[in-house]
């Protein structure tokens, strides 16, 4: 839109310039309006006067039209001798600013002229004109006003006008647009000269003037008072005298009579007196007395002043003063906790007290005296303190003590304190505490109905501090089951709140809870530790959170744990518990676990631990070992039992029976045993007899002659062998070297004993032994007895190296060695 209008204006100017160039004196047309600024919504009338000599209209048919922004308006055409006039009438101009242009439509369409029209409203009269004198350096008079609610849409200028009547001086101060405040310098006003002040607002549609105000500048000053001193008046109890003045820069007004207001409060009170005390027509030099105050009490005071109808000053800085002291008055509320010392027949007393509503200390330094006698006497004093409690001992028969408040001016009447014994009766239950606001807690409890119940005592103290003076109490009657306790409770700090029942004859058992004004997440989270693990279980434990780091009542402990796959599990524990057992854990996974501790104010997360269940933990090993041991024991017992029950069969299985050669006949043995030996081989049955001993010796294939001789000539070797067997200590007929001599034969093989059928003939060695042969029931494992390091000895086995020299008759041998006949039979069988 703006760009369009700019282009229109540029064209307009170019056209006008062009017309000037042609005619050199006058423009082609001129647009006129009654007023370029009109009230918004009012009619607008404009004329476009076109010279008849204008080339646009000379000798052409033309048409004149009007354009207001995007809208076309028809014009009334008329003509006179020199010009053509088009008049347009706009019934309601609703733009705050617009351009009205005159167009000539002939062979071409041209703008021949235009005019800017603005619309708005006349200014409203400025409201709420006010002025205030500033008597600091420099002295000034500041006036301000409200411009009015309606937007004028036109530039509205404001000017401040003053007329000083004493000097007949008038001043006008013009302000920049939009500024509705002006500071008149000292030269523009007289302090004690009445002046008229008003504001004028002007724009293109008119001007208005505010309601004038008439003031004496000194009466419009906001003063600055201060309290010099507050002091007690001698012999006037309950009175304070205030000396005050104005600030240094305003001290010259000392002779003025000012209105003054005083407000007071006691030093421990949060609020000022509701209604300030007004003192009229007072001079600075004169002190102001305030009476009907509490004796011996520190008061804080503030004042404010004004001169005639000037605005009140701000309240001065506070000053304090103390009234004269008198003796304390009123009674003290007390709370006694008694515990018995039966050994010494004495009572341990904790006596707490606080001022009742009627109590007045009437002095600054108040101390308290507890005595056993009603009349003040030094010998009856059991305690004297400036605090709010006392601990002392009394004889068991003591029934009451007396409490007095004392200050410099005197002592109060005694307050009787009865010594109630503790009773083992509990009627209070369900104590709960709900925070009310930043300073109070609501304590609720339930009580059993008891005819002797007279009321309750609610006692509270900070648990993190041991100072007994911080113990506070409140006494209620029997009908109450809730109480709002107020004090300087700190958030996140624990308070122990106890509710004691009061009976006619003593104090019952209390119920105590821990309470917090506000709770938040604990400051620390205990470190979880693995106490033990077994199978797929792990027991985790942790330490208790220190009281000062709990920040609230612990609601729950939760242990989160997850395996490698990220499966998260949660196990919770009650606030009083400090252990959880994680079950169903996989022995092959590494687990991560952390603890979250919650109060009603938030939760804290602890550090993460990793653990893995061992497949054989100590318990499992012990269990497994026990089971295995028991099993093995049973097995062994069974085996042993079996052995005993089948002793003979076993013996025969493991140790073949060797027959007694003395009771054997080779013929019978041979004839009978041939078949038996076959059976033995096949059935692995022990051979019941046949040979006392059979050794297999392996000779190297090329054994030297010398070696053979040595071997053959050495009869002691076999003798040793025979002796070793014969000398078995397990034999029942063992008799050492005195056993009967028994003939033996040693068969020597040239090949290995485990080789297939030997090709070479065996060698047989004869020997004798006086030692008995093994009994069948003896378990004896023959050893592969070796005479030479590299050779095997084969007892009773054929050996080609041992074959007799050629030419020797074998039958002779068989005759000499009847046992070997059996071997020969066996060889043939094997072959």
């Amino acid at each position, binding site marked *: 839109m703006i760009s369009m209008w700019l282009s229109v204006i540029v064209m307009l100017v170019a056209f006008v310039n062009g017309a000037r160039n042609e005619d050199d004196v006058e423009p082609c047309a001129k647009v006129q309006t009654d007023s370029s600024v009109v009230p918004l919504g009012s009619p607008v009338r404009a004329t476009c006067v076109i010279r008849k000599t204008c080339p646009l209209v000379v000798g052409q048919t033309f048409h004149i039209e009007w354009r207001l922004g995007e809208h076309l308006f028809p014009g009334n055409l008329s003509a006179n001798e020199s010009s053509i006039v088009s008049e347009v009438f706009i019934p309601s101009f609703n733009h705050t600013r617009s351009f009205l242009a005159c167009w000539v439509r002939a062979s071409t369409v041209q703008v021949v002229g235009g005019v800017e029209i603005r619309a708005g409203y006349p200014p409203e009269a400025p409201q709420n004109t006010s002025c205030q004198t500033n008597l600091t*350096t*420099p*002295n000034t008079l500041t006036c301000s006003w409200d411009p009015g609610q309606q937007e004028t849409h036109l530039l509205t200028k404001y000017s401040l006008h003053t007329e000083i009547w*004493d*000097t007949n001086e008038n001043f006008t101060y013009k302000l920049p647009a939009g500024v509705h405040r002006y500071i008149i*310098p*000292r*030269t523009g006003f*007289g*302090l*004690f*000269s009445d002046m008229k002040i008003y504001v004028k607002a002007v724009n293109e549609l008119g001007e208005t003037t505010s309601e004038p105000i008439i003031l004496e500048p000194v009466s419009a000053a906001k003063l600055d008072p201060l309290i010099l001193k507050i002091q007690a008046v001698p012999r006037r109890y309950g009175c304070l005298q205030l000396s005050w003045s104005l600030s*240094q*820069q305003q*001290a*010259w*007004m*000392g*002779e*003025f009579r000012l209105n003054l207001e005083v407000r007071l409060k006691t030093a421990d009170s949060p609020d000022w007196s509701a209604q300030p005390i007004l003192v009229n027509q007072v001079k600075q030099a004169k002190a102001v007395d305030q009476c009907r105050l509490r004796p011996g009490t520190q008061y804080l005071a503030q004042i404010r002043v004004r001169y005639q109808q000037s605005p009140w000053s701000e309240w001065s800085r506070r000053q304090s003063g103390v009234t004269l002291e008198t003796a304390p008055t009123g009674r003290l509320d007390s709370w006694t906790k008694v515990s018995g010392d039966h050994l010494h027949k004495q009572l341990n007393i904790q006596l707490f007290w606080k001022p009742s509503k009627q109590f007045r200390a009437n002095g600054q330094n108040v101390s308290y005296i507890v005595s056993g006698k009603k009349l003040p006497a030094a010998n009856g004093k059991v305690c004297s303190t400036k605090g709010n409690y006392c601990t002392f001992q009394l004889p068991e028969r003591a029934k009451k003590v007396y409490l007095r408040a004392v200050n410099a001016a005197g002592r109060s009447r005694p307050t009787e304190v009865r010594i109630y014994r503790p009773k083992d009766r509990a009627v209070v239950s369900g104590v709960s505490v709900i925070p009310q606001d930043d300073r109070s807690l609501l304590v609720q409890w339930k009580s059993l109905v008891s005819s002797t119940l007279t009321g309750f005592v609610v006692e509270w103290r900070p648990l993190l501090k041991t100072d007994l003076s911080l113990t506070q109490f409140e006494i209620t009657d029997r009908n109450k089951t809730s109480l709002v306790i107020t004090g300087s409770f700190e958030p996140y700090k624990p308070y122990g709140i106890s509710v004691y029942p009061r009976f006619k004859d003593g104090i019952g058992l209390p119920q105590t809870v821990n309470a917090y004004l506000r709770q938040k997440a604990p400051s620390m989270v205990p470190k979880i530790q693995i106490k033990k693990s077994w199978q797929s279980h792990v027991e985790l434990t942790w330490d208790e959170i220190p009281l000062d780091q709990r920040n609230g009542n612990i609601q729950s402990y939760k242990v989160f744990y997850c395996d490698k796959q990220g499966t998260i599990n949660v196990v919770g524990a009650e606030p009083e518990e400090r252990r959880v057992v994680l079950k169903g854990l996989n022995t092959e996974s590494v687990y991560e676990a952390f603890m979250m501790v919650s109060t009603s104010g938030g939760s804290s997360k602890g550090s993460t631990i990793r653990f893995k269940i061992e497949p054989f933990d100590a318990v499992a090993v012990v269990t497994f070992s026990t089971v295995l041991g028991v099993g093995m024991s049973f097995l062994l017992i069974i085996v042993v039992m079996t052995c005993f029950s089948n002793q003979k069969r076993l013996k025969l299985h493991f140790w073949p029976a060797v027959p007694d050669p003395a009771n054997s006949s080779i013929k019978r043995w041979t004839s009978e045993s041939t078949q038996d030996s076959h059976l033995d081989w096949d059935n692995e049955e022990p051979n019941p007899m046949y040979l006392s001993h059979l050794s297999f010796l392996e000779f190297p294939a090329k054994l030297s002659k010398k070696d053979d001789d040595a071997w053959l000539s050495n009869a002691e070797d076999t003798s040793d062998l025979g002796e070793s067997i014969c000398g078995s200590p397990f034999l029942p007929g063992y008799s050492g070297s005195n056993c009967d001599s028994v003939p033996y034969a040693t068969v020597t093989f040239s090949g290995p004993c485990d080789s297939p059928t030997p090709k070479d003939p065996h060698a047989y060695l004869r020997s004798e032994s006086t030692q008995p042969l093994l009994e069948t029931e003896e378990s004896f494992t023959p050893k592969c007895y070796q005479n030479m390091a590299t050779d095997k000895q084969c007892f009773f086995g054929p050996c080609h190296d041992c074959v007799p020299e050629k030419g020797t008759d074998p039958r002779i041998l068989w005759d000499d060695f009847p046992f070997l006949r059996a071997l020969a039979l066996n060889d043939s069988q094997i072959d």
Partner: protein
Amino acid sequence: MKPATVATLLLCFLLVVLTRSAPLSSAPPAALQAAAERAKTLVEKILRDVPAVYEAAVTMQGLTLDPPSQTSDLQMMVSSLGIPPAPVLKPPSETFTLAVCVTRMSAGCQLYQGLLGDLSERLSGLSDLRADLRDLHTHINKMKEAAHLVGVGEGQSVDLASRLHGNYEVQVAAHLTLTQLRSFCHDLVRSLRAVAAYQLPGNR
């Protein structure tokens, strides 16, 4: 005692009392008192403001307001600058009438208003003091009106500006003006206090 005697004595007593209570002089009108009170307040304000104004305006070493510098050394400067002495004020009396007193007050105010006006062109911080003097002059004129003290001549005017050639002269002139003004104000306070208590001559 006879009743006639008593009546005679009582009449004589009343005559004496009435005769004694008849005004020998009248109290000043309230307007005069009020104007004098206002004027006194303004003078006290000027007296409190002068030290601060002096400290801001006079910066030349050797010139002090408290204690005042030796004016004897500056006699030549006083004459060359053409600063006249302040009008002499006394408590109004039969010889020093209220009209003369108030006229001299007014003349003094005019004098120092003019001097401060000339100095204000060369120094800053004097305009408030000058405005106070203007207000004081206004209220002294109100006193005149209240006491019907008309036809009394106006004070002299001094062309100080033309003699302030350099800063030295400006500093000395400011020192002399403020020192003399303070002294004049002290006299004014005393005179105004006397005016407030002054008993206008009345009809016997």
